[in-house]
């Protein structure tokens, strides 16, 4: 599948649209006239690891903000499994199956690792549901399972505040995993990690990819090469290049603005 086959007619009418998990089309957002994201289109397949790279201020984080509803688009559309996301609330987008990890580890310092994971368990999300939520065997087993995947099985009773930086990043990835999203968006998941932690994180991402797509923003080129199926390069709010890491690396436009430095 490539960009030339994109549906130009209304979404929902074209069976080809089923092939994409996420279709971002002509997405634009302007902040006081400044177009942070300008006419961006890209398409993510099921089970794909897509990495977005680009210099600072290219609009990478803004694209994730737009997809998860934190920022409202000025124009354009974001279709996830045939559903228009730009009209949904943040919590509805999460419930549709989109999970988002923030750039700095965003975890609950005052709660234990277990409680951090429990809050992300996708049940009892209404006020009443949260009040009557029972910590039953299914919840415990799932939390233990995920804790094992994110290398935190022995830290469940610890307050999250006391984890190392890398462990906090993993905890947040675990909090997303427990939501079981079909589209997982990670903003710089290995920033500030040690080499050993990076390797473990790449291994973790390759393991959790089964049955879902991952959209990653990352600066670490070695890490990008390790995990990316395809790479989208953003520059000044526009898509500069797209394709395999090999292709992107040899694209003269990319070399000029980004990799050549």
């Amino acid at each position: 599948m490539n960009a030339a086959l994109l549906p130009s007619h209304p979404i929902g009418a074209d069976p080809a649209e089923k092939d994409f998990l996420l279709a971002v089309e002509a997405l634009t957002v302007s902040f006081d006239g400044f177009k942070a994201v300008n006419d961006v289109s890209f398409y993510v397949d099921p089970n794909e690891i897509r990495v977005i790279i680009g210099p600072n201020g290219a609009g990478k984080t803004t694209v994730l903000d737009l997809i998860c509803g934190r920022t409202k688009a000025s124009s354009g559309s974001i279709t996830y499994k045939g559903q228009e996301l730009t009209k949904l609330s943040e919590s509805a987008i999460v419930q549709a199956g989109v999970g988002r990890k923030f750039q700095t580890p965003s975890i609950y310092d005052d709660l234990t690792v277990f409680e951090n994971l429990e809050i992300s368990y996708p049940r009892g999300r209404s006020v009443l549901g949260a009040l009557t939520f029972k910590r039953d065997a299914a919840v415990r087993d799932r939390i233990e399972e995920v804790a094992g995947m994110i290398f935190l099985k022995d830290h469940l009773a610890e307050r999250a505040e006391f984890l190392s930086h890398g462990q906090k990043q993993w905890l947040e990835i675990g909090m997303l995993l427990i939501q079981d999203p079909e589209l997982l968006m990670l903003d710089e998941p290995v920033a500030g990690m040690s080499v050993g932690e990076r390797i473990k994180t790449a291994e973790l991402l390759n393991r959790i990819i089964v049955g879902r797509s991952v959209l990653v923003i990352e600066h670490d080129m070695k890490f990008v090469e390790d995990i990316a199926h395809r790479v989208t390069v953003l520059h000044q709010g526009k898509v500069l290049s797209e394709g395999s890491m090999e292709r992107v690396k040899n694209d003269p436009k990319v070399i000029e603005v980004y990799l050549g430095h």
Partner: protein
Amino acid sequence: MIRPASPSTVHDNPFMKPMEWVSLALLAAVIFLVLPLCLDAFRLNLAGKYLSYAFVALGLVICWGFGGILSLGQGVFFGLGGYCMAMYLKLEASSVENTKIQSTPGIPDFMDWNQITALPWFWKPFASLPFTLIAVIVVPALFAFVVGTAMFRRRVGGTYFAIITQAIAAILTILIVGQQGYTGGINGITDLRTLNGWDIRTDSAHNILYFVNGALLVACILFAQYVKRSKLGRILVAMRDKEDRVRFSGYSVAGFKTFAFCLAAVFAAIGGAMFTLQVGFMSPSFVGIVPSIEMVIYAAVGGRLSLFGAVWGTLLVNWAKTTFSESFPELWLFGLGGLFILVVLAFPNGLAGIYRTYVEPRLTRRAKAPESAPTALPHAAE
């Protein structure tokens, strides 16, 4: 609050931990045994009045301590609960034979003084006790729901929310004072006599009301404890910490904040109704900015993260207020302000924080001598 536990206790989520049961037993012993045995009827009634403020402090622990939503307008809800109860009691005290010297018998005296000749429509349902008891809960809850939804949906929080709640307290005071004919004005609703025929002014009635108040307070503590240990309680703490993370974990943050605000309002209203019953009147001086801030100080002094601490803080501050304002009436407010600054700067977790940092580690060390478990104290959020 949470200390490293052995693997078997990782998933345990008991209703109360042993130390919390001890705290509850201690508080119950003081309320139901020590105070009634040690105090004369007048002082016990005073203690009952203080304990009615403790409901407000309890609500603030949930709303401010756990949820990080500082309301400087809890007097509004205390007042709404108190006024609902006072309206019922006033109507009962304004029977035709009690008010036969008025130009319009059968309506509250202050209405008669203000040349009102018929009972206003919104007073009429308060002739019914069941309606009043429901209204004590529902009116403040609805008001908090409207205010909370309007604010939190628009993501108004922090200082702005505190300022708006304070403005609401000021507005309600002005409204009550200004609409003298309907509300009793600055004097409030006074000369309350009977509750469904039972004279509430006698010592024995004060005594019974004191115990009813204590029982309701314990019930509210238990409900607050239920909320605290539920996932909702942990979501409140999580929201205080990282609101966006909660939002992007699929929760409607506004809904949870509104719930915490409404619960705090209902607690405050129960306290207000019990205040009216025990003190025998309700006036705008319990609604405005100053009482609202005082109520925040109770929770701050006691410890905004501790349900029991809030009750102790209320008792302590009010005891100090009574003692010092009897001797140095003009200095008391400075003392109160100084106390608040001291607590915020030196002991951000209040009395409960001091207890947890200095007393509890010694107690547990003595209990299990060889074990030296590090105690982790939850940090107060900004």
